[in-house]
């Protein structure tokens, strides 16, 4: 019996990724989109037409990562104009920063929008309460994965906790189903100040495919201050880890 366990341990070896910031994902991964505007708009128009969430505008050419589900179909319609890179660090501190413009070569992360108390109170330890409101369970599984044996975000003092009373913030996933709206509100208000609010996944950021559904109630998003926006369908664990890490780091103010 013991032999069996030793065998498992030996087969698995060290599993954790030592440098989480140094990871480059596979070329196939669709992360930050690079946009190139052209005179001829016909391809962009086709891409904008087929986009299931209306994430693309044609003039000027922009792509809203908060709506994008990273299906990659627009790149096939307009290969000269849209190219998804494997850059997974997509976090933004302001909603409007998720809108990518032509010529932009990296995601925008505006440190000036971060409240200074976040680094002060949560720089060493951060416990979060996750609430799903109509999410399809993929973002939720990726959030679970952030604490697994490979990513092991817990080593930096970040974890998920059961009680909102024990948590320092809320991570919201899903387009916010109306049937869950009240429970979500109660949960958020049960968390003591100071607290942070993280919106995880494109469906949570914009409603995604369900933005116009009458079964969805998005008033929560308008009511409270959001500290971090994390796009993706689902959000990659490394995107979450990178965003939270930068949110709680002390940033030098430019002089």
């Amino acid at each position, binding site marked *: 019996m013991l032999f069996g366990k030793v065998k498992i341990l030996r087969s698995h070896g060290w599993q954790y990724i030592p440098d989480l910031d140094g990871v480059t994902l596979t070329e196939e991964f669709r992360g930050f989109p690079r946009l190139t505007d052209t005179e001829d708009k016909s391809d962009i128009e086709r891409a904008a037409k087929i986009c*299931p969430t209306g994430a693309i505008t044609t003039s000027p050419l922009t792509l809203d990562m908060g709506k994008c589900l990273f299906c990659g179909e627009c790149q096939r319609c307009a290969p000269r104009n849209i190219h998804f890179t494997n850059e997974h660090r997509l976090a933004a501190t302001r909603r409007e920063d998720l809108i990518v413009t032509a010529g932009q070569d990296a995601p925008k992360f505006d440190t000036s929008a971060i409240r200074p108390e976040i680094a002060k109170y949560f720089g060493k330890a951060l416990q979060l309460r996750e609430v*799903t409101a*109509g999410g*399809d369970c993929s973002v939720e*599984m990726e959030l679970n994965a952030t604490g*697994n044996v490979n990513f092991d975000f817990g080593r930096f003092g970040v974890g*998920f906790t059961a009680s909102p009373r024990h948590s320092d913030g809320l991570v919201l996933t899903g387009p916010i189903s109306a*049937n869950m709206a009240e429970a979500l509100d109660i949960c958020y208000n049960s968390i003591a100040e100071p607290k942070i609010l993280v919106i995880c996944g494109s469906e949570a950021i914009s409603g995604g495919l369900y933005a116009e559904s*009458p079964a969805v109630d998005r008033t929560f998003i308008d009511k409270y201050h959001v500290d971090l926006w994390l796009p993706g369908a689902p959000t990659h664990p490394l995107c979450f880890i990178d965003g939270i890490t930068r949110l709680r780091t002390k940033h030098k103010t430019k002089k």
Partner: protein
Amino acid sequence: MKLYLTTNNRASAVAISDIPVVDYAELYADLRDRMCNTRYHVGHYFATEIENGLKFYMLLLDDTTGEVLITSFIPDYYAEGLASLTALHPQFHPFEREMHELYGIPFDHHPWLKPLRFPHNRRDKSSTMDSYPFYTIEGDELHEVNVGPIHAGIIEPGAFRFICDGEQVLHLEIALGYQHRGVEEEMLRSQNRLRQTLIAESIAGDTAVGHATAYAEIIEKFTDTNIAEELKLERMIAIELERIAMHLADTGALATDIGFQLYQVACEALRTVTINTSQAWCGNRFGKSMIRPMGTNHPLTAEKVAMIRKNIADVRRRYNEVREDICEAHTLLTRFEQCGLVPKAEMERIGGVGMAARSSGHMRDIRATHPWGFYAEKIHHEPVMKGEGDVMARLATRMDEILQSADYIESALATYTPSGTLPAPNYEAPLKGEALAFSLIEGWRGEICHVALTAANGDIAKYKIKDPSIHNWLGLAIAVRSEGISDFPINNKSFNLSYCGHDL
């Protein structure tokens, strides 16, 4: 009079005019006896709006012949009511509850006519999540435990109400609907088929490949498309990868809930390898974007075939070590064996499907009984069966299925050389009008059934989705009866049912 139109899971769409419109009393009389035979079970049963009322459609699956029986009826339900089929055969309960909730149809003598998911378009708006009519038992020594809608971990919301005598659970009732997003209505908001494909992928994110395959099959049946052999093979690889990934996740989750960290971390690592294989194939760890109607954006290449074979061989070898050790781990067996029993007869009665049913010795596996694509032509699938119906049986089914799926992938890829000629997806092909198409897919949880109806111009006018969870939630409620309430988590994980797939 002919009661049913007979077709199967490989035939193309059928004209609505070919589906018999029968008298409900006659159908009821036929089903009373027919459904006593376990070779039949209900695939789907729903109502759709027509001029001046509702038309009902029912799909019955015959597991012996592989036939699918389709019928319809237009009853005068408000005047006469409809005799409840659930009263005879409990497997009809979610379908009748759904129709009652949406249209207010009175099903006479339905034993459990409670709200199903509180959809936004329900008939009785005064019925809300907060007013769910939980079953209660009077007694000085009994107490109730309410769990949810928000649970301890990162999982989806649902409300569980236990009635306990001390630590023993007498009754569990599960109230769902918190995840309702209006999926079936959003399917019809626009006829943009890329959008519809993505909605299918989001029905249950952990079954993205399964539901997207079901959608793609529907489109292919409406367009009479016989997809290339290679594409059938690649879709088989995709769905078996998903099965391996989720069975690994659940092996790990079960270990977590009894504090067995070694298996937990081993399975986490193995799942990472598996879903990263999907990511290296199509760019998404959950296989989103892998399945598209009538073609693919991510055909396999020789390098990707080699990558998948290498990773799966590695997962298979390492998982087998875990599996062998689990079978000897007495501390684990003590917790899992004889816990959460669902006897075969009970599973048959409630219409259980998929791996949970097979763990109770009840054979339900679409890959064997109603095969599609690659399973119909190249694999003679022998379902993994266990008889005990306890938590351990559900784990053992998973363990064997992982190895089986790995074998299918390995043997299919061993001789596979991609030709590089697979077509791109087609989102524009005109659909046959005034027709009904359905698809049956065995996802990792069990039987997925999608049904669509088209209007005269070929637009999809009705889209109905069935995730296997809709059958199996009642199985979980039955499993925990008479167990200690502290065993609820392992029972829950042993089923791992979908909230969003149920709530839609």
